């Protein structure tokens, strides 16, 4: 794994940390607004941005030279998408009353 010996990576960590805290405050604030059907969407978009920041910078996916890591991450997301996508397309097309 690559060495993170420069102080610039420390600054990045603190910046990401502040962004994550701001994102948390933002999602709590946004949940109090009446956005109709978009409330859930906004909450999930903020959560996904936060999760992506953690994965890229804290888990060092960004900057890794290991291609296997990226392959595993992408395939995990791919199969999660299949799980959710197929299950939801089943339930969404049933006639619930």
């Amino acid at each position, binding site marked *: *794994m690559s*060495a*993170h*010996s420069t102080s610039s*990576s*420390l600054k990045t*960590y*603190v910046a990401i*940390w502040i962004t*994550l*805290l701001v994102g*948390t*405050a933002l*999602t*709590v604030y946004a*949940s*109090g*607004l*009446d*956005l109709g059907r978009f*409330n*859930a969407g906004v*909450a*999930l978009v*903020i*959560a996904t941005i*936060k*999760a992506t920041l*953690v*994965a890229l*910078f*804290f*888990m060092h996916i960004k900057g890794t030279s290991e291609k*296997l*890591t990226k392959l*595993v*991450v992408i*395939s*995990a*997301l791919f*199969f*999660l998408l299949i*799980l*959710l996508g197929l*299950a*939801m397309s089943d*339930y*969404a097309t049933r006639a*619930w009353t």
Partner: protein
Amino acid sequence: MWAFLATEVMFFGGLFCAYLIYRLMYFGDFGAASKTLDVKLGATNTAVLICSSLTVVLAVWAAQTGRRMMLVGNLALTLILGLAFLGIKGIEYKEKFERHHVPGASFQFQEKIPGHPDQNANPQHAQIFFALYFVMTGLHALHMIVGIGIFVWLLLMAWKGRFTPEYNTPVEMGGLYWHFVDIIWIYLFPLLYLIDRHP
């Protein structure tokens, strides 16, 4: 380690999938049940976990640059934050027991459906919400307990000076696990606490 985390994605993914299906099926009842959760405690716990992720990443950095005291300090801080998370979670669970919101024979639920003040939520459907709440947060808390065990071991090894810029893979692997558990909570928080909070 990444392959293990990929299996964990599917592990939690199944639960998220079950949650999504029931949320869409019993939309109003889930909204009413979610409204009874304490957003302040949930948000505090989110902040606690985010802070612990920072201390973890600082610990990994300290291990890679050979700063032993910084490593020990950050591992200890992570442990404190992890225990704080579990403590707050315990307070929340206690409140659920007191209000009979734990699924089972003594389950009671009398709340209005958000947006329909004349309509009571179906207690059976609300019970499904709380069952999912306890399974998802419980499994997450179990992962936290395992993480705390890993970090106690890392702390002992770091104290003995076992980690050097050449050998620090255990710190990095433990860190990856901790961040993953953090990511799970980042999704659990809005899905369980924040749906249907708006007036």
